[in-house]
């Protein structure tokens, strides 16, 4: 009986299309990650959501800096610069910002995958492929896309370029550049959601309990970040 049970082949992993995976992340991330862990490595799993994040980030940039003249004025401050340099700045600044956003999305994906892999390897003492961690982080990035869309909507509704789906929304006039404002910004609904999904991803990757994975993931993505804001 036991032998018979052992001889039963494992249920084949059903491979869902990427679009379906990206949607399922919002509702059942565990299942998506189970599929990713069991299946072969698919670079599209992290490249496509990261590209979408880049696109969303660039649109958000446009929403946060609607007036180029004001942006240039903000950059130069009281200093006076020649008109040709001003023109150049108003042309270069959006380009630099957009490039930085794209770079940040890709570099951030690679870095966060490394952090997950490192946590698994060093703290949880489990081994898994770095590329799998990359896929997990990439797929989680789709929540960032949704968060960006919501942020754009909030900005357009409120007319406040500093509006975020976070505690700072209730903080009234808290300056986002200052410690308290940044602290409130950190407690963003989508950030917390993303962190939770990453913890699920790590638990699936490493085969550890969600509690253990979330200790490390929240420790890094939330508490370390808050500590940096307080101490910085």
């Amino acid at each position, binding site marked *: 009986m036991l032998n018979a049970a052992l001889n039963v082949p494992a249920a084949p992993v059903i491979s869902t299309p990427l679009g379906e995976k990206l949607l399922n992340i919002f509702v059942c991330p565990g299942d998506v990650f189970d599929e990713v862990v069991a299946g072969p490595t698919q670079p599209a799993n992290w490249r496509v959501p990261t590209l979408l*994040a880049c696109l969303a*980030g660039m649109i958000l940039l446009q929403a946060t800096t609607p007036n180029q003249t004001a942006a240039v004025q903000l950059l130069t401050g009281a200093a006076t610069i020649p008109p040709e340099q001003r023109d150049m700045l108003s042309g270069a*600044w959006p380009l630099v910002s957009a490039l930085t956003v794209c770079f940040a999305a890709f570099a951030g994906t690679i870095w966060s995958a490394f952090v997950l892999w490192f946590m698994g390897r060093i703290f949880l003492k489990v081994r898994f492929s770095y590329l799998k961690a990359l896929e997990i982080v990439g797929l989680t990035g789709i929540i960032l896309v949704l968060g960006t869309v919501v942020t754009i909507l909030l900005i357009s509704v409120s007319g406040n370029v500093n509006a975020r789906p976070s505690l700072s929304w209730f903080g009234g006039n808290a300056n986002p550049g200052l410690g308290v404002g*940044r602290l409130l910004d950190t407690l963003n609904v989508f950030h917390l959601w993303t962190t939770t999904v990453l913890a699920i991803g790590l638990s699936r990757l490493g085969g550890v309990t969600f509690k253990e994975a979330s200790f490390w993931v929240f420790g890094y993505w939330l508490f370390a970040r808050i500590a940096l804001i307080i101490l910085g």
Partner: protein
Amino acid sequence: MNRALVYLWIALLKRRTLHFLRGLRRPTTLIGFAALAFCFGFWFYHRRHEFFTHLVRPEILIGGALVMLGGSVFQGFLQRGLVFEPPDVEFLFTSPFTQRQIVLYRLLPGYLFALVQGTVFLVLFAPHLKHPVMTSGGVVLFQIVCFHVSAGAAIFAGTISEAAHHRIRWMMMGAFFLITALYLRGVLGLKLIPAFVSSPLTQVFFYPAVTLSDVGTAPFLGQWTLRWVKSNSWSTFGAWEAIFYLGAFAVAAAMSLWLVLRLRANIFETSLATTTRAAERRLRFQQGRSVRVVELVQLRSRRLPKARLFRGVGAIIWKNLVVARRSRRSLGLAVAFALIYSGFFIALRWLFHEHLTQGGRLPEREILNFDRIIGGMMCVQVFFLQRALPFDFRRDGNHLVGFRALPISPFGLALAELCVPTVFSFVFQVVGLLALVIFAHFAWTLALLSLLVFPAIALALNGVWNLHYLLAATRRAGGKAESASPVALLMVVALSFLIFYPAGWTALQVGRHTLRRFSEPLAMGVGLVVQYLVDFLLVLILARLFQRFEVSRDAP
């Protein structure tokens, strides 16, 4: 607290104290104890210094208290259970004592420690405290609290799972770091976290929990763009050219790496042979032997000449001459080097002479100084030549034991060993000097003086390198580990210069304290005598080392 346990603790304490006092008879223990006593005495002597006032400032005391408390919690937590002496475990755990009594027994040494610590605190800090006894009492009690906390943490940590312990340990580490950073920032104004870490750009490290527009509109990025636009340096041709070259080299590096990695050849077999060869060469170099491995070829033996010079210990000189004759490569290298080196200075002196003959004018003193520099540089030649002329102990590693059986004195043997490289060096120098005198009109008085100086220098340098070789060989024969080669080589090189220090220093002193007219020749003469004395001592040391040499296992 059980009285029996108190008695046991006092008895054990007494025994340990006696054991410690008996242990002071051992020099190592005594030195350690003396160092501690000296340290305490030093602090006690300076207890009224202003530095102690700073140490009892409230913020410093709070910092110390935090360290003590945090350290106690962490130490106890890491222990995962109370630590007892093995005999205690056998005796106490099987005896009819309650758990509370055993825990108290375990804490007794801590209480004593707290008392001693409080006393030391009182002795050192009393002059700077308003209520010294009360404060010291507080320190004692706080230390006791720390011991309690540590014991509690140890007992608690023993009850939790391994995973939870691991997790809490890291959590505590993080919390301690945060508390330390907050304390340093709040009290001492020290920022552990640099300002750039809190920049919006660092949000990238927390992707995907970020707002990308914050990264794209970071103030640093704006300032950078502004600077770029203002300087416009990137748009200049120079910058683009530099970027282009940098990119080209980067592509070349990547391409070459790609090509290397694509090579399908088996690297292991070839690398093994190369590694062995390189290791052998490195070992030979470290041991002061010739780097080149002597090929085993059939060589004809040479008859010993009938000249009296080559009888007795002179036979060693003959042997080394034969070795030199067979080492054509080394000799050729030495000749080539001497030609290039001397040729350069001959040409320089010749040019100098040419300029003088064409009307250039210089005081006699300046000309003499120039010649002195040239003479000095000719002396330096030996520093380089001695490595190319190792026809001494360095080539006799596997004959040393045999030499000890010869009816010759060790001093004579050491002198004979040094003879060939010294004579060769001297000959090379003299040839260069002659050429200088003949072709470049070098001052002949200086040339004559150099004839006396050159052998002293050559003997000293060859002596130092032979000393290094014999020391290394003695260590190897004694089965001791090799010393760190770079350090040893550095020391030998340093010694090669220091060996001339006594002569130089003496010459300088004599020159300063004698009459002006005779000061120079007298100083040079005395310096030369001292140098020959140093050489004599060096040969004596070599002879002594040779005497002590037991067994050589050197390969040829």
